[in-house]
């Protein structure tokens, strides 16, 4: 399906740019998931998607729908807010769990627990 909403050129350019760069940023984050060596490095990568990727694509959506409906459409902001609130929770919990698992296995790369 090759289709797109009917937008004025300027808006189309903005939307296209935002959406593409957002996707690209996200892809970079996911590539990081592939390329980085340790778990603790990899855990940084997805934040590209949750921060910039989401922000850019949501902005694209805001522009697109605001132009389409000729009134401000900002509900996408909710997504940015929610993802900013929830993604860190996952990462924190996961990071700590990984730390525990590495410590219990005696992985030298992680700092030991102070008694």
């Amino acid at each position, binding site marked *: *399906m090759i289709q797109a909403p009917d937008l004025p050129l300027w808006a189309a350019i903005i939307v296209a740019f935002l959406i593409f760069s957002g996707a690209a940023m996200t892809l970079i984050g996911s590539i990081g998931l592939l390329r980085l060596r340790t778990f603790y490095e990899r855990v940084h990568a997805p934040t590209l998607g949750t921060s910039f990727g989401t922000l850019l694509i949501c902005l694209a959506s805001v522009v697109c729908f605001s132009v389409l409906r000729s009134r401000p459409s900002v509900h996408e902001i909710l997504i940015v807010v*929610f993802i900013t*609130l*929830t993604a*860190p929770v996952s990462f*924190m*919990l996961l990071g700590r769990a990984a730390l525990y698992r590495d410590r*219990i296995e*005696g992985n030298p790369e992680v700092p030991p627990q102070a008694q």
Partner: protein
Amino acid sequence: MWAILLLPFAGSLAAALLPTTSRNAAALLAGAIALLCVGSLAMLYPAVAGGDAIRSELEWMPAFGLDLLIRLDGLTWVFAFLVLAIGFLVVLYARYYMATEDPVPRFFSFLLAFMGSMLGLVLSGNLIQLVFFWELTSLFSFLLIGYWHHNESARSGARIALLVTAAGGMCLLVGVLLIGRIVGSYDLDAVLAAADRIKGSALYLPALIFILIGAFTKSAQFPFHFWLPHAMGAPTPVSAYLHSATMVKAGIFVLIRLWPVLAGTDAWYLIVTTTGLATLLVGAWAAIFQQDLKGLLAYSTISHLGLITLLLGLGSPLAAVAAIFHTLNHATFKASLFMAVGIVDHETGTRDLRRLSGLYRFMPFTATLAMVAAAAMAGVPLLNGFLSKEMFLAEALENHRGTIIDEALPFIATTALALSVLYSVRFIHQGFFGPAPTGLPREPHEAPFWMRLPVEVLVLACLVVGIMPSVTIGPFLHMAVESVLGDATPRYSLAIWHGFTRPLALSVAALIFGGVGYAIFRDRLNAFTAVPLMGRLKGRRSFEVVLALIVSGARRLLALTGTGKLQPQLRLLVIIACLAGLLPFLRYGYEPGDRPGVLVDPGFALIWLVGCLCAIGAAWQAKFHRYAALILMAGAGLASCVSFVWLSAPDLALTQLLVEGVTTVLLLLGLRWLPQRHPEMLPRTRRLSPYRLRRGFDLGIAIAAGAGIALLSYAVMTRPLPNSIAGFFLENAYPGGGGKNVVNVILVDFRAFDTLGEITVLATVGLTVFSLLRRFRPAVESVRAPEQQRVQNAFDDRSEGREVGDTRADYLAIPRIIMQWLSPVILVFAVYLLVRGHDLPGGGFAAGVTMTLALLLQYMAFGTRGVEARLRVRPMSWVGLGLLIAVATGAGAWLFGYPFLTSAFGYADILVIGKVPLASALLFDVGVFLVVIGATALILTVLAHQSIRTPLTRPRSDAEPEAGEL
């Protein structure tokens, strides 16, 4: 007439209700009923004697040509009379025979029921009805034979009799059904009138065979004879009744009854004659070697039944007359003999011929009676047995079909009769003459008068009939014969003396041979413990061996054709489903349709590339890496969520996304109770080839199933849409249902009943989970706290300044704040989904799951105790309330006279706010919402609660010191 039939059953019921000690009352009841019936039967005699059959009909199953029909004609009358009269005598006899402590009401109850069944059998004017009563006689004879069920012999004898005769009864049913099919009616009159049609039918032979099997089993014909001797475990009155006038005569009765329509063909002749002949010989031969008096009588019964059968098989009217006559005679003398043996047994405590001797001096009356009856059995002149025997011999000398049987018959008959003489003489001589017996269990003496009376009556009958046949039995016999043979009734004479005829010569020869034979072999006969020639063919043993073989064979076959294991069952299910789906294509061929397809979106394709990888990965990992498999499964699930969005099904996507979350948590909750699996746990033997073969096979099935369903879906998707009901929904959702989201309107309005069922399923599963987990018994390894907690708690315990639980507290301290503040946000979102569902994607279900997720977050953040200290979590009530709201909303329509779930919607004009759309369907959705929260929360919290329960058996060892760094 119906009274005659019903009285015994009523009496049986009454006797069953009597207290166990009331032997006199029971006997009196039974005797009175028998007498009453005899009396009524006698009153019907004049009507029957005219030669016509009396019919009395009661509608039962008219559609099946099956009405209850009593048909009383000459034969029936005579048989009924035998049943009732001998029945009365047996009752009288039994009253004195049965021990005082025996709870006889039950006995008389069975006896009466048996009498009723037998009467029903002979009085049946309808073949199906006849089979009905036939099976009842099998049943009650089973109960009677097994009356002393504390004896092993009675139990097994009863069971054998039941199995053989009931099996025969079922064959008889088939035969009768075939007759019914040929004739078009089960009415006996119709059947008797259709002799030619029956004999000419292609189904004649199967019908004949089935009916004969039935008759032969009941009448103990070779090779089905073996049940009869084993039925001797029954109380003697029962034997006297069953084996003289009733049970075994049922088969004979059917043969006689259907003689006009079945006899006279080659098949009949060959089968019936041969069987009768074999039975005659086998019975007589076995009888001479019996040491047990009842056994002797049993085999003699078999032999005489064979004689009757043989006569019937010959097919000539005269032979039929002889058969009928001998049936009557046999009933009298055999009943009296059994009773006499019963007296001997009763008074001496044994029936062993080798131990008995010289009883004449102790019980002269009984001895005399036995002698007369035995003489009748042996065919001594001036007794009734002699007359029918002469008729038999006369028939034996006739040429019927010119077969080898005809040629040999005189010799065989004489031999058999000689054997009969032999065992009769042996019985009398050995039992009543000779020296006084020694070492008997009881001191023998004469039986009481009332116990002898029945024997005396019967023996008197033998004598009277034997001396003055034409005056006494003549009219009755004629009546019976005429009712069977009708116009074909031959001329026969009941005179005692026909001059020096060939039959007489054979008769005399038989008497001499028998007597001489006894003189020669008497001592040697006593030495036998088994019947020579047939010894190896022990009926009961082989029967039981066959049964055991059948059972063990069945067990082996069951193991072969069935399975108790789950995998093979699922395998079969999948294979059969695949085949079922495939077969039509073998016939019609497979072709995709020509609907223009939708162009592939690269994003969609990539999503599914990932989804498929995840699915395959899940399949790969599920054995050892459950956790990984769970994640992979979630990945595949996400792919399908996204594709629902892509394919214009946002409602599905929302719902599935939410359910995904709950499912993940759910499975993780479960995973805690499943102990770890490691590849190392596998024994090496797993690499064996059958295992690999099975895996390969399963892989094949899986691929076939996948390919099959893929092809099916492709074929449907590429076809144009039929003119479906969807159009109606799309058109009427807004005008008729008040909602713009057609899917939701379908769910809460058009097909709200489905939704009601669906939430019921959810509620039910919640209940089930709740119930099951109340008695949850975790695996031994998982009763303790998980390893992580033990290690962390031990660390906290060790470390200075830390308390047990600090690690957990630290871990959750920050996330829990965010999770807590998110819960009102999620709540608002849930309400939003609920409210907008009717117009846009969302709805009660999605909202409910959203709420559950909010609740779950709190549980994860604060633990079960933490949450339940703050909130009253009562999911069971939410479920109940939700269901009630949904039902009440639906039922609200009744008030307006509309069917259940009829929705109402409108726009309420509320001040300031403006028009607000209100649909009753929204209320219904609120019910759904509540049930979903309740049920999902119920399931999850009940699972979660397992962790905080304290096992009774083992103290919770959280703080167990264990090596390990944190």
